[in-house]
């Protein structure tokens, strides 16, 4: 617990600040030292830049959608400026914009965001390892991501894409838009995702340091591990589905296209067999981040460690059994729909276990309302709403009413944006000092958290109302009675955008003007806080001491140097045992 001065007679461990030579950012210079690096930290940073760019592009597309829906007849794409450089119908532009928004957000941002960007940086450091098990595979998975992104962008410039991100047949086999380019992109991105997951499973299995048993792993690693299981088991099915879709378009193999005696519902089954577990690829790592954030910033041992760990695995496995709930109205037998509906409810149990454990962790903790904690708190609030509205959609009778309305849009944005994006931003703020070695402005960070929270709710709460009143999704125009709620939603989207912009400015500003970050700015007990900020090239000068990742007993606030240090009581040495080295470099 942080209590002020350090009691006498303690061994103080603090790695201090890295030297120029051992800091991973400065150990070698030049563009090629980054492009061909095998260092997991640099690959993680490149991913971070990549997914952020993808996120900004897709975010701008989202704003474009909202501004088109400002007026019942459509506003933005009806402006003369659009008429001047394209002769496309405004409604067609709208279809292409929402498709690209969804596809880029899902395939290029949310799926790789936490596992590939933060996970790459953190997994080996949390394990006290030098690198992931297969560094070359790691780099190749980054370049696969880049190629996939290029395919998506070229789809945008070729002839657009208007199928929605799900590529449902038969529309995707008959439309003239560039489905093949986009599906090739998704296929390549799938392999990027598989390789990342495979790498993490092997790393966590074989490279844990001595003393770190499965139940002494930080919960972020448990979350990453279960995410990786899904990535390895589900993504190949997407791969073959998209390959068959490409074959269907080029050779008409007659599996999915009803015109050639194929079955479009088979496509939906194949697609959702991947894409429902993919929802958990998106949210599980966010759970891992929140477990870390809540515990560290409440300075209290995580409540129900084993329950949180097992619930991650449970979600990963149950996630494979519920894909049919996307297809309740697609013409399945009533028995099948009832079974899928019942299985869907089982997923809520492990999710609720997590939320309760986080709340119990905060109970009687000494909570510091730092920026990461503000994001973590808004995550719990938003994810709870997102999760509970999911029950409406899992219920057969209400789903028939709410299917394909704005209620669905609001629900999955509460989970994907309110859940994953908010956790991602919280995680970036939490580990930013470790990644770049600079502290950011706390006030600015909190402002961004507040703006994101407000803007988000303003955008998507009205959409629940819109949906339950019957506003269908994917429509470019609407009845005038929905105008007010749509305009509120558009205003909220603007606020949300400003909040994200503020966060970006705060982080960028810290790169130049930030205070030097100590090794342990928050008082965390996991291994990544035991090395310098930023970490040296091989992460640790010597293999770190492995203990309980949530034991804050010996983490003390050092008044003199204004940072957290590890201060353990001196122990009597057994005969012949060497004294532990003291890390401090003053």
């Amino acid at each position, binding site marked *: 617990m942080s209590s002020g001065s350090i009691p006498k007679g303690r061994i103080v461990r603090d790695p201090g600040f890295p030297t120029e030579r051992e800091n991973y950012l400065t150990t070698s210079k030049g563009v090629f030292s980054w492009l061909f690096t095998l260092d997991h930290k640099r690959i993680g940073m490149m991913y971070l830049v990549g997914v952020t760019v993808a996120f900004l592009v897709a975010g701008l597309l989202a704003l474009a959608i909202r501004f088109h829906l400002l007026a019942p007849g459509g506003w933005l794409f009806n402006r003369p400026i659009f008429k001047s450089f394209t002769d496309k119908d405004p409604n067609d532009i709208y279809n292409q914009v929402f498709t690209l928004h969804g596809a880029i957000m899902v395939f290029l941002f949310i799926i790789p965001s936490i596992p590939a960007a933060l996970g790459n940086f953190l997994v080996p450091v949390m394990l006290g390892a030098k690198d992931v*098990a297969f560094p070359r595979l790691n780099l190749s998975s980054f370049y696969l991501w880049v190629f996939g992104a290029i395919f998506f962008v070229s789809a945008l410039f070729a002839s657009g894409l208007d199928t929605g991100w799900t590529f449902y047949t038969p529309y995707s086999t008959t439309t003239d838009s560039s489905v093949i380019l986009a599906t090739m992109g998704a296929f390549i991105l799938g392999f990027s995702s598989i390789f990342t997951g495979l790498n993490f499973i092997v790393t966590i299995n074989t*490279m844990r*340091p*001595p003393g770190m048993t499965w139940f002494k792993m930080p919960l972020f690693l448990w979350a990453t591990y279960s995410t990786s299981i899904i990535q390895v088991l589900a993504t190949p099915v997407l791969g073959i589905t998209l390959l*068959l879709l490409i074959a269907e378009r080029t050779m*008409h193999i007659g*599996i999915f296209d009803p015109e050639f005696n194929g079955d479009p519902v088979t496509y939906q089954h194949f697609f959702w067999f991947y894409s429902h577990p993919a929802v958990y690829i998106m949210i599980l790592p966010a759970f891992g981040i929140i477990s870390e954030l809540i515990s560290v910033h409440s300075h209290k041992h995580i409540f129900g460690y084993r329950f949180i760990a097992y619930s991650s695995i449970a979600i990963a496995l149950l996630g494979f059994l519920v894909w049919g709930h996307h297809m309740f109205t697609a013409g399945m037998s009533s028995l099948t729909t009832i079974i899928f509906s019942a299985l869907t409810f089982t997923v809520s149990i492990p999710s609720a276990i997590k939320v309760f454990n986080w709340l119990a962790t905060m109970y009687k903790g000494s909570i510091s309302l730092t920026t990461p904690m503000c994001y973590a708190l808004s995550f719990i609030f938003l994810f709870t709403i997102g999760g509970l509205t999911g029950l409406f959609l899992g219920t057969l009778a209400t789903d028939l009413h709410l299917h394909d309305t704005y209620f669905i849009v609001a629900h999955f944005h509460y989970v994907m944006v309110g859940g994953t994006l908010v956790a991602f931003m919280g995680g970036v703020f939490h580990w930013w000092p470790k990644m770049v070695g600079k502290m950011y402005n706390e006030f600015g960070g909190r402002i961004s958290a507040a703006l994101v929270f407000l803007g988000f709710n303003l955008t998507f709460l009205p959409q629940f109302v819109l949906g339950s009143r019957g506003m269908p999704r994917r429509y470019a125009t609407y009845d005038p009675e929905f105008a007010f709620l749509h305009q509120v939603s558009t205003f909220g989207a603007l606020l949300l955008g400003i909040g994200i912009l503020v966060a970006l400015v705060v982080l960028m500003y810290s790169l130049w003007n930030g205070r030097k970050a100590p090794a342990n700015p928050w008082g965390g007990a996991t291994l990544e806080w035991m090395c310098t900020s930023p970490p040296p090239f091989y992460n640790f000068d*010597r293999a770190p001491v492995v*203990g309980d990742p949530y034991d804050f007993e010996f983490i003390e606030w050092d008044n003199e140097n204004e940072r957290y240090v590890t201060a353990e009581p001196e122990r009597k040495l057994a005969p012949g045992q060497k004294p532990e080295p003291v890390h401090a470099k003053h």
Partner: protein
Amino acid sequence: MSTLEAAEPDTHGHDDHGHDHPAFLAHHFDTPEQQFDSGKLGIWLFLVTEVLFFSGMFCAYAIFRMTRPDVFEGCSQFLNTKLGAINTGVLLFSSLTMAWAVRCSQTEEHKKLTALLAATLSCAMVFLGVKSIEYSHKWGMGLLPAGYFTYNPNNPHPEGGTNWLIWLCLPFALLLVGVVIWLVISVVKGNKFQTACAMPLSVVCLSFFLGVGLGTILESGEAQGGHDVAHADADHPAGAVDAAGSVVSQDETVVGGGVVRERLVKDASNTGLQDEFVARRTQMELATGTVVTDRSDVADAVSAVPQEVLTPSRAGVFFGIYYCMTGVHAIHILGGIGVLVWLLVRSIRQDFNRQYFGPVDYVGLYWHLVDLIWIYLFPLLYLIR
């Protein structure tokens, strides 16, 4: 709390490896065992993804086999069981040589390892040679996926089509020429290492044409003796075949998306199209306010569909699945050839030893999986009667 590791002196320097860190051990691993275990777990996980990748197609196979058993049994007659059986034998034998190669890499018998890897590669090439005979023969007959299906039972071997076999053999012929030129140059220059690489590789390239020859002999034997019998054997009434054939032959020459669609509209056996027309008509009726109560006409329309097998929309589905499954499998064979060549070069360089034989082991596991998938494909596609 503390572990022994913490007290140990730092054995690994930052830039240079300590003397206990052999060259084959990557910097981030502590022991060769840890490196081997990581690789082994990695390759097994990769094989899991491969199985799941194929599972999508096996699933599609199961669905369509269940709904259209007659189509699958009828069309399976067109697959040459002899060629499939030869290929199965070749792949099984290559699995033996591969497993033997793994053993040799562990016992450091470098010469034998090189020979066995070359044997495995040659088997892979024979497999592809036989496969290209099968493919080119079917393409010539128009036995293609639904979009391009032009088979006409009255004229199974139309004259004057593209000779697909030449196109399939061309890249391999170029490869063979390239390797032989490389061999000659390296012999003239006296580069022993390159000669040692080019020699087995030219044998490997040559084996493709061994496969082609083998396939040609068996396929032509079939054509003289049992070809007509095999085609006539197919479980479908002759009259239905004629009807379907006449529909297909109306515009034999044009192959393309739009025309194919129009042609399929005339294809009475296409239940998907039938359903769509009925649905559209119903929709129109509903739009005009007609109350639709009796839907027996839908059931009648569906059950009245004649059950021919050899129409684009029916046989085409079987051939679509056939080409997808065997094609993806063939791509895996090509990938396997790539990594086996890499292993061959490394084995000539004598990279592998008692402590470091991981790559041979991993590629071996991959090769066995590719073999195993063929073991499933062969009976599922060729042996259904």
